[in-house]
């Protein structure tokens, strides 16, 4: 559960095109203030001309800074107001994705606020050229940049920006916030040449490669982008043979439409399938050698059945495959909710309950959101979600692929997840194996309402310090949960030396609680967690209890 000090922002930013407010006859403010300040480059300290400063004093007021970076808002009433700055090519720290920085607040009254210095972080840019075997610029080659971040205690690499090289082989990836990146180029969409008959495997092209070389992230060199860094990468790729997958399907393609997907390392490829329904054949475009997973799906209109086929391929020559479509793998999910409290307030729709809400939302409500994550070597492993079964307190996970899965369940009501089982298998500890053709036992999710609540108070080391709370179950550290610190924003003179947190719906039991000063603390990595576990506070949480705890902030990292 993420709690970020966003409350104030939500109040002042209207998501709609117009800003509406009650127009009330208010007693005239006794005093108005001038809010002034300066916008500077966080790296060089130079003033920034033409930056847009917005002050959310009741309604948004906007000013562009002058050549000296200065701005002034006149006639500002007393109060505490958020301020925001924008300029192309720069970032404002509180608006960076995954930023822990809190928005700066201007406090007007009782005195004139002191001039504010607002910093903008200059963007990073990765640019350069891609060249081929004989030094020729490679045109129309895709270039992607992945950023590495720690989210919910787990390192994640996600695609951040993408582009294509131009006629000169040049690419530019701008607007990069400071951070750690990986660059991936290729594959070429059209073979660069055919040195012989393509039917004999003579097509050549450029396979996808991470900078500086290598087909996967393991061989990639991370690129650190500091604020304002412009990094040039000139990179020569080597061509390699390209091949093609052709095939047939054990179904009549004239009446059922086949959808095909090709993945490599868990990533879907734009594979340009050509399907000829009349002849019943399909073919991919030219592909570099490698391990691929070909998945076909189709819907049989006569039976209403979903069909699928999956085939792993080690592509080292042109290959022909036959896809055998079989009924898709679906796993039912059942829920058991154990209520113990007399004041228990079940979810938005009560199963077997009474009242208006129960009947109204019943068709879409399930007591918990269930997510299966395929255990695969992939940048972002595929996830499958349980969908509610109409008019029932059950769900089903459709169209699973054969493989091992980890399971997560997130209660949709005031419960905690006590158990997730498949037969005798404890899915909170073990992976679920899904195989083709085998019987698929239902997943049973047990929820209870006698949860514990942890109510914390944290002594900060500096005003407005950011941090993250991690609650680690003693018996299964891999199921740790986190929360962000909050304090009462928007109240003039609020105590910003102390922050609070609340984590509810915890299973009763023994925990360790740790507050760290880095919101990107990688607590799911046992090696990282182990280093700081001794500084965590041990705590026993009882059923239906609210436990108060006071903690200090632990510094993590270098």
């Amino acid at each position, binding site marked *: 559960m993420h709690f970020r000090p966003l409350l104030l922002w939500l109040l002042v930013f209207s998501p709609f095109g117009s800003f509406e407010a009650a*127009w009330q006859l208010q007693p005239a403010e006794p005093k108005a203030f001038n809010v002034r300040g300066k916008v500077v480059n966080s790296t060089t300290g130079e003033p920034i001309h033409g930056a847009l400063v917005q002050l959310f004093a009741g309604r948004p007021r906007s000013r*562009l800074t002058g050549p000296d970076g200065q701005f002034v808002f006149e006639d500002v009433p007393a109060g505490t107001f958020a301020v925001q700055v924008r300029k192309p090519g720069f970032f404002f720290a509180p608006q960076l994705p995954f930023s822990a920085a809190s928005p700066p607040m201007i406090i007007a009254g009782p005195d004139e606020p002191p001039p504010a210095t607002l910093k903008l972080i200059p963007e990073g840019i990765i640019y350069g050229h891609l060249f081929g075997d004989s030094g020729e610029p490679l045109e129309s080659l895709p270039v992607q940049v992945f950023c590495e971040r720690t989210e919910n205690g787990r390192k994640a690499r996600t695609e951040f920006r993408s582009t294509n090289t131009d006629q000169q082989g040049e690419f530019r990836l*701008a607007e990069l916030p400071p951070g750690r990146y990986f660059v991936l180029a290729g594959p070429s969409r*059209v073979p660069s040449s055919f040195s012989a*008959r393509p*039917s004999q495997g003579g097509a050549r092209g450029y396979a996808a490669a991470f900078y500086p070389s290598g087909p996967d992230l393991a061989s990639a060199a991370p690129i650190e982008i500091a604020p304002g860094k412009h990094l040039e990468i000139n990179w020569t790729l080597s061509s390699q043979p390209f091949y093609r997958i052709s095939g047939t399907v054990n179904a009549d393609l004239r009446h059922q439409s086949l959808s095909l997907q090709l993945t490599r390392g868990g990533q879907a490829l734009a594979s340009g399938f050509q399907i000829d329904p009349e002849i019943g054949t399909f073919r991919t475009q030219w592909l570099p050698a490698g391990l691929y997973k070909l998945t076909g799906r189709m819907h049989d209109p006569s039976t209403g059945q979903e069909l699928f086929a999956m085939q792993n391929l080690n592509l080292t020559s042109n290959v022909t495959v036959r896809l055998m479509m079989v009924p898709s793998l679906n796993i039912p999910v059942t829920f058991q909710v154990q209520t113990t409290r007399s004041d228990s307030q079940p979810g938005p729709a009560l199963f077997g309950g009474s009242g208006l809400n129960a009947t109204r939302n019943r068709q879409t409500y399930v007591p918990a959101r269930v997510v299966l994550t395929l255990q695969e070597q992939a940048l972002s492993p595929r996830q499958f979600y349980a969908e509610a079964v109409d008019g029932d307190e059950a769900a089903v996970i459709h169209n699973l692929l054969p493989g091992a899965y980890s399971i997560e369940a997130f209660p949709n009501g005031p419960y905690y997840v006590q158990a997730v089982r498949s037969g005798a298998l404890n899915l909170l500890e073990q992976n679920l194996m899904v195989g083709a053709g085998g019987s698929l036992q239902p997943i049973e999710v047990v929820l209870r309402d006698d949860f514990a609540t942890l109510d914390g108070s944290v002594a900060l080391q500096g005003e407005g310090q950011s941090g993250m709370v991690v609650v680690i179950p003693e018996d299964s550290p891999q199921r740790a949960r986190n929360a962000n610190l909050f304090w009462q924003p928007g109240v003039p003179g609020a105590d910003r030396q102390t922050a609070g947190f609340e984590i509810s719906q915890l299973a009763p039991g023994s925990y360790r609680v740790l507050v760290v000063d880095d919101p990107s603390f990688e607590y799911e990595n046992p090696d990282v967690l182990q280093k700081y576990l001794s500084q965590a506070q041990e705590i026993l949480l009882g059923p239906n209890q609210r436990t108060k705890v006071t903690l200090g902030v632990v510094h993590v990292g270098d």
Partner: protein
Amino acid sequence: MILSGFAPLLLALSAFAQQDQPRATADAQANFAIAGVVVDGVSGQLLSQAEVFIQAQGIPDSGQSMMTNDDGSFAFYNLASGHYTLSARRRGYLEQAYKQHEGFSTAIIVGAGQDTSHLRFPLPPEASISGEVTDEMNDPVRQANVILFQRGLRSGRSATWRRAGASTDDRGHYSFTHLLPGTYFVAVSAQPWYAQHDVEIMRRASNPGEVQTEELIIPPDPALDVVYPVTFFSNAPNMADAAPITVRPGEAETADFALHPISALHLTVICDPPGGPDGPGNVWAEVREAVGEGWHEGVSVHSAQIRPGLLEITGLPPGGFDLTLHTSHGKESSVRSVSVHLAEDSKIDFSGAAVNATVSGVIRMDDGVLPARSFIQFRNRNTGEQVGAQVEENGQFVLRGRSLDPGNYDVSANGSGGMAVRSLSATGGKVSGRSLEVAAGQDVKLTVVVSKGTGRVSGVALKDDQPVDEVMVVLVPEVLENNLDLFRRDQSDSDGSFNLAGILPGKYTIIALESGWDLNWYDPTVLQKYLPSGEHVEVAPNAKLQVKVKVQTSFQK
């Protein structure tokens, strides 16, 4: 030969045989050759290091390629007889099929008695237009939409069309590459990144204790309530005043833009508020700016509902617009459009305005089952702009969203296996042949009968009894006017042969024109003078005719 893809190499690599194409046969004697030179299409200079590709039509994976030698020569030996697609690419030149014109090219017919070893393959040097877009602070404008228009002859008529779009990068830089020589226009549509167009609406009771409220509209800060008007190179507000950019072969032209903000206009829109006792409906406005020659660019405007029935649209530059108001309430929805020219803040009253005319109808196939995923298309005869709708399984179609502007449209239908409009009838619109005239505010119900068009004519284009390649062959219907859907075209192959397929039964004239690719053939008066020397045919259902057509030289340029 008709090319079915854009990039010849991609086409040549396509997986499956085009049906009914003559196939190269594996059992034939494989001792023929395709050979020749690749030359610069302008200077005639021999081009080394060009990749030349051949693919036997109808045989997947039969493609092969080679690089030209220092003397520009290439040669493929040991080929079976058959039809081959020949294409080439080289850095600095446009990738082309042999003698490519629009979507046609000349296929190489290999076999006994055919000289296919002395080909001369001209590749046109490619050109480019690039530039930088900056704002009034001399900062680069990022993510500006840059639009490239081309003016010239397309499908037999003079036209200006939207050739490509690009977006500026962090340096404000854009480029359009791989251009053929010709006449182009470049326009930039962008917004100041800092612009603030939102109005603030405050409400209070008209009188203390009353339910009735009045609104106070606080406009945005005028210094930030600014827009960049659509700007054509060089600094022109529309296409008519724009400087055409003449691109010569191989040249890199530059077109830079310095954008200057102007005050945005405010438009107050009054309409009948949609809704009923069960709640209010939705209203939204769509604004398209007229940039010239019938082309429109969407303008991203801000609109705020002051109260039901009253909208405030902000963020508009001065100019000519199509303003479309969409209202919906439950399942009911309606669309009303007006064309306005705005020079200052204005007010438009839509209340009581007529709902846009809808064009709907039904399609029936008279010689088979209508294939799933068929489309009907309406091509504006003035602008060339096309609007289409997908046909539902029961043959019904409705033109959704924007309806047709008043005017004349060529009607065509397409779907897998090919089809052509056999007859057209309408209530609410005037039909002549296969064209439809739409009047303002008048609903049109169409009945369209289509046929698969199973007739086929193949033949040879001859000049002094010698076959001629690269000529434009046109199948002209008996009635020229309003029958665009009945025309068929092809380009003669290396042995002078051509193929015209998907022909509806009827009387036609086939003409073959040398230099026909520069001809304004869409104009019936232009085509008329070539008809007497054409080949007259009557095509019966499923007919497969063989003809010899005399090549005429087109004089019009």
